[in-house]
């Protein structure tokens, strides 16, 4: 299991379009991905979970990946979040 803290730079937060882009990148991986936001644990492959969490611009989140390709998945996830998804 690997994890990293990051900050959402998308000015609209993780809404429909950014969340959609994030998920299509993450479903390529076999590992599980969890986004920890406050006291919420969010399935990083679920658009419903992500949108319902209302993750806004500037939110601090932790990404946890667990599985056979966890490091590659974590790297791409953090890179996507930090470079903006729109």
């Amino acid at each position, binding site marked *: 299991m690997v994890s990293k803290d990051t900050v959402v730079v998308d000015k609209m937060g993780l*809404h429909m379009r950014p969340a959609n882009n994030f998920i299509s990148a993450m479903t390529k991986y076999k590992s599980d991905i969890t986004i920890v936001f406050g006291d919420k644990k969010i399935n990083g492959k*679920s*658009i*419903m979970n992500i949108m*319902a969490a209302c993750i806004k611009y500037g939110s601090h989140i932790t990404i946890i990946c667990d599985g056979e390709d966890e490091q590659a998945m974590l790297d791409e996830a953090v890179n996507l979040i930090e470079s903006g998804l729109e």
Partner: protein
Amino acid sequence: MKTLKGIGVSPGYAVGKAIVIREALIDINSSAYTSAEEELKKFQSAVAVFTKKTRELIESLTRSAGKKNADILNGHIVMLNDPFMLSQINDSIQGGKTAAQATDAVCNSFYDMFATVDDEMMKQRASDILDIKNSIIGILCGENGVAIEDVPKGSVMIAKDFTPSMTSRINRENVYAIIAEAGSVTSHSAILARAIDIPAVLSVKNASELIKDGDLLAIDGSKGKILFDPDQETVQKYENARQSYFEEKASLAEYFSRETVTKNGVKKAVYGNIGKPEDAEAVIQNGGEGIGLFRTEFLFMDRPSLPTEEEQFEAYSTVAKAMGTKEVIIRTLDIGGDKAVPYLEIPKEDNPFLGYRAIRYCLDNPDIFKIQLRAILRAAYFGNIKIMLPLITDTEEVLSAKALIAECEKELESEGVLFKKGIPLGVMIETPAAVLIADELAKIADFFSIGTNDLTGYVMAVDRGNGKVSGLYSVQKSAVLKAIEMTVKSAKSVGIPVGMCGESAADSELIPKLVEWGLDEFSVTPNSILRTRKEICECD
């Protein structure tokens, strides 16, 4: 004539026959539970049918309304393939529910989750879920949905709500207008109606009960007006308006993506005036190059107490984000005098137009003013915001406002809050005093914007509401024209940009003069943007 009123969200005129779309009552318990395996299979094939249908809709919508608008439906496919949602439906089916019952229960729980969040975007997601649920259950229970595609030419469609999939199935050749009980300027149905250019009136209470199939209706999509059973004269009037709306639209369409440049190659800009954050959409839709006047009074009126810094930040940053790199000029609070706000407890005055209002009130109440300035500075981080001060009559007022802005910057810095430093500060030229000292003001301001509505009244010493003297209220009066010319020249001599944000910026008679004097930016109501650009482009 009986009339109904709603929110006009997509302009245009129409006369047509009503077709009320009633939600088909589908009995989700109509089929009996077979086995978990069978129900799961049924659900999966419904998803496949849904995905195929939606892909077809996306394709046709991309052609009629553009890719960005079609993406709304793409989201539906992603939402339906959500692993979290699928696993819940699976669990529900394993637990003895039929495919339709499971879809209903799981979608309803997601709907509740989104609908209860007080956020416009979340509410839209709730309406997406409802749309998905109805489609899937419709497929499962053999309901093919209302035949929206097949309505006859000249129809006006009425529904409780137009979901994205319903709106995208509308045949724009046959449907002349849409009316719904739900919705707002920013809802999907409004965005799509504007994209395919059919008049739409939303938020009409009980429309689907008050309007009967076959009723003849006349619709004004910008005013949000619906007339029942119009007489021959009215029908003719609306049909002419519809015709000229299309003709004007077609003649102006080419100016949407054109630069505002005079025949001599001088670059100008046409901006839009707005009074609420959601109006920014209309500026974008009409090809505005920025927002030249964002009135902030709406935040302060019709409420019992002052808006918080967060509320103001939300409103300003929404517009800044919507406009991207384009300029947004926010006018600070222009309140008092005639625009009464009870909780501010400004005493009634004999001469409100010469009284305690606008910048005078704000500088006298720095605690209130600073909340607004802080919200603007924070919002500026998200876009290209400029500040404009109303009713300036003296350089001292500009310097005091500058000092307050500097204070706010310091506070925000020490609090570690994100904001933008040193954003441009402009002066609204709307008093004779400001015109007379325009040369002095130009040295301390970053830009001017001429507010012709008040300027005309003050220069001519006339109350436009007084019928006995209102004939004197005209921007074409020599004194007013001289005041405008002086202001533009003062700005030009120092080299700061100068715009105009009164109704006169769209005045066909005045535009050639303004161009000749060197006005840089014309800020007009969103509906006048393209016509104003056309007239500027036709000037030498």
